[in-house]
């Protein structure tokens, strides 16, 4: 299963959760699979997806799903420690782990030798899920607590276009969705 298939399987099972999506192909693939005002696409600041998700989860009540990658998590590993300590009950951190930096040419990451689930477990995460072939979010969506979802995927990027939205428009649409204004326009 490549990344886009994993993203497809996840979005099919989500209801109305907010999504913070990692920079590069992950955001492009999510945009191609299912664009939504619920989605925040990162166009820069690699590594920050889990942090943005944590802040968003702490600031409001809706569930937040972060679609992060192994390379990005390795770049901001301290984020796991902060998430564990703050422990918002509405944060689902998904690591799409292809053991490489997919958007820059699939150079190997250290996720091939370090098991990120075991890192999360060592930090203290109690709600840990690992998927390889099938992805089942039914239990995950019913848990109150911070959840670490580790999905092992194959290398590979889908042939999808770049996101044709301005950064500010991505932000404004997302904020309006959170404020609930879209429904009243």
């Amino acid at each position: 299963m490549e990344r886009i298939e994993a993203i497809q399987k996840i979005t099919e099972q989500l209801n109305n959760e907010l999504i913070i999506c990692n920079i590069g192909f992950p955001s492009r693939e999510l945009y191609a699979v299912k664009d939504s005002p619920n989605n925040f696409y990162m166009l820069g600041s690699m590594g920050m997806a889990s942090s943005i998700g944590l802040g968003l989860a702490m600031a409001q009540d809706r569930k937040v799903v972060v679609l992060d990658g192994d390379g990005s998590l390795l770049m901001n590993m301290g984020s796991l420690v902060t998430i564990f300590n703050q422990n918002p009950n509405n944060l689902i951190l998904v690591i799409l782990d292809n053991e490489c930096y997919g958007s820059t040419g699939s150079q190997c990451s250290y996720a091939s030798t370090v098991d990120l689930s075991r890192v999360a477990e060592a930090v203290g995460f109690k709600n840990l899920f690992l998927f390889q072939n099938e992805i089942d979010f039914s239990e995950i969506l019913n848990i109150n607590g911070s959840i670490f979802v580790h999905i092992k995927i194959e290398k590979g990027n889908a042939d999808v276009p770049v996101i044709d939205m301005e950064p500010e428009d991505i932000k404004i649409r997302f904020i309006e969705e959170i404020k609930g204004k879209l429904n009243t326009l």
Partner: protein
Amino acid sequence: MDSSQTIYQALKKAGINFVVSLPCVNLGKLMDMIDCDSDIIHVPVNREEEGFGICAGAYMGGKKTAILMQNSGLGNSVNVLASLYKLYQLPIIMIISHRGTDGEFMNAQVPMGKATTGVLDALEITYFIPKTPDDALKLISKAGSLVEIENVPVGILLEISFW
């Protein structure tokens, strides 16, 4: 009024209700005040860059945000300021303990101390340098208006002589 108390009051007046922090010896009292305030969510972080990420999410979730950090943390955060805050036009008040300025007792703080305003200039981030608590009240209020109207980060540099 005491310098730490002044910064705290000014942040309250600006409506700040979500703060991330990394300690500096000069920020200790301010951090304690914020930690004791049940109307402010306070998130201690491991690295300043991470703090900016958390505040970006909190802002989109409706909070008014500030970061407390030493100027060394500005160096750790150049990319997130450029490719998240500038790119998406996000607001935040940065309360920065500016070490390596006049009166610094530790030589090791001087190189980053000297680079600090240049880094902010390169990022085209507005900053104010209050010299007294009265100054700080006015300038943080100004910073509060600026972040809201223009959706930008604004720095408050607190040199060693301020405390």
